[in-house]
């Protein structure tokens, strides 16, 4: 198990290297000349040549790539923003905490709401409550988050005047962003919990527990639900992917000064180095989180190595999921 975890974390290295290759390719094909962007219009030709040399733009591409990677590893250097002329790493680091806070809050609240809902729907299968919850999951997964955000602003900020429509540093102004960004994940998780519960309820050990006269509540919560949660834990990683992608929109709508808004603004301002910096940071965060989820998952369920591989193959709740690696030996091989 220890070596599995170590290998899993070592896996960050090739993946991030690959991401850096992709981002560097982006850098090569992106329009615009950094020298023109970074210097004032009045700069002389000598200044330009000097900066070009300093940025290493005259070096061979391989050298440029090596410099780029080494710069990130040794000094966390992601380049200079075209807009503010500040180091991108500093700007991103100022914005990172609020994005992580928003993501974690949404994740926690999403799980708190989704699990009981999914459980209820499965226990009362085919009842009106089940239908209602299914309807909610379908509609919930279909509402565009920016539209939901605008509607909430209209109701709670414009009409009722209960909550501020923009982020202003207070907890109250975080309520709407958290609700909006957790909404899609709630729908997906509820559905996942329901499906997985429905399978567990039909398991032999659940019937055995009932036959032995165990209380229904205990049968559901202890025997069925606990086991049903195992695939749900695996879903957290992809939920976080959704959240990280969603922050871009949610932060823009509510003017939350996080990484998502930074990247979205950078795209509209054609501030390419900042876009790339954002991609690197968010991908890094996403990879690390996924690995933590993967490791947690293997600890929760050592059967992973055999049983859940089939589920993964069916690709139903696991597609795009991150139980990486070769199919039969996923866990042991560490995926590389």
């Amino acid at each position: 198990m220890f070596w599995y975890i170590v290998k899993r974390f070592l896996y960050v290295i090739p993946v991030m290297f690959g991401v850096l290759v992709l981002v560097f390719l982006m850098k090569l094909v992106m329009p615009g000349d950094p020298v023109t962007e970074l210097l004032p219009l009045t700069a002389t030709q000598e200044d330009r040549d000097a900066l070009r040399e300093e940025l290493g733009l005259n070096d061979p591409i391989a050298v440029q790539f090596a410099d780029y990677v080494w710069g990130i590893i040794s000094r966390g250097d992601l380049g200079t923003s075209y807009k503010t002329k500040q180091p991108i790493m500093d700007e991103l680091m100022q914005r990172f905490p609020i994005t992580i806070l928003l993501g974690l809050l949404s994740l926690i609240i999403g799980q708190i709401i989704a699990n009981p809902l999914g459980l209820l729907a499965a226990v009362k299968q085919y009842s009106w409550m089940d239908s209602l919850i299914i309807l909610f999951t379908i509609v919930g997964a279909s509402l565009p988050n920016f539209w939901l955000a605008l509607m909430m602003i209209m109701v709670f900020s414009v009409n009722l005047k209960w909550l501020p429509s923009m982020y202003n540093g207070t907890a109250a102004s975080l309520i709407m962003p958290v609700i909006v960004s957790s909404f899609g994940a709630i729908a997906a998780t509820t559905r996942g919990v329901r499906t997985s519960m429905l399978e567990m309820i039909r398991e032999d050990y659940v019937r055995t527990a009932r036959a032995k006269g165990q209380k229904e509540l205990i049968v559901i919560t202890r025997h069925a639900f606990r086991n049903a949660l195992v695939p749900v834990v695996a879903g957290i990683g992809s939920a976080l992917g959704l959240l990280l992608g969603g922050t871009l929109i949610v932060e823009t709508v509510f003017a939350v000064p996080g990484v998502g808004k930074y990247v979205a603004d950078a795209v509209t301002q054609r501030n390419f180095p900042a876009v790339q910096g954002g991609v690197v940071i968010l991908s890094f965060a996403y990879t690390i989180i996924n690995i933590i989820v993967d490791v947690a998952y293997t600890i929760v369920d050592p059967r992973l190595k055999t049983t859940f591989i089939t589920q993964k193959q069916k690709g139903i709740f696991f597609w795009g999921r991150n139980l990486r690696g070769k199919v039969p030996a996923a866990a042991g091989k560490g995926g590389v």
Partner: protein
Amino acid sequence: MAKIMTPAMEKLIKKNRYNAAGVGSSGKEAWKRLRRNKTALFGMAIIIVLLLIGVFAPLIAPYSYFTQDYAATLQLPSAAHLFGTDNLGRDIFSRCIYGARYSLPIGILCVFIGLGFGGGLGVIAAYFGRKTDNVIMRVIDIIQAIPSTLICISLVAILGNGLIQLIIAIAAGTIPGMTRSCRAAIFMVKNNDYVESSKSIGVSNLMIMVRHLVPNAVGIIVINAANAVSGNILTVSALSYIGIGLVPPTPEWGAILSEGKVFISVAPHVVFFPGMMIAITVVAFNLFGNGLRDALDPRLK
């Protein structure tokens, strides 16, 4: 034997015939089961209606999508303007009708492109296994380390605004998911006897993949494709909303929303209706996908 069998029995046997994998099935079989599922059919009906609305937009829309009428700006919904008008006096209903020409076809087209590239890679990875599988999936792992919205956004940033650029970006974002799902689907059917026997009589690898594996895995592939379309529609409109997909005055639903958001306190209908259109479209695809899954996955029966 045949004489003893009544038509009813034959029907029953046909009805309960599932192949070894339980989930994958030939296209015809999948269609048969799909037809029995009301939700999936309902979703499909909405999708077809929306596509027709897009095709016949000029005939359905009462006004053109760009005609401005400064005498009638920001009007509430009425008989003359079903969904009201925007700040330039354009008819929102007509704009929403024309909007069916953007997000929906783009979403579908990008999934087809994604299936062509990503799905093909997934089938190859699953069929050949071992080294091929390893190489392809490691590359996909790397692409998937970047959240797909970010892939789309950075591609749009490089390529610039525009329809073709948007399609490339969204399709590229679809590829890793398609590779994974097709690979998973093929894994379920590749160990069937007919694959083995095809190999033994010397059928080429390409033929086995195209004629045997893909048709038998088509159910799962379609489920995932339907889900990917709804994701794509949301991405297209979200990108347009933040101003980096299709830009106004294009009557794309997200772009209409983006134009209308400033007037939300005085004219909420400008924002409400295009959002509803997006939601209806995505609901249709989710119903289709979920119904299909229920119809094809015996575990959920």
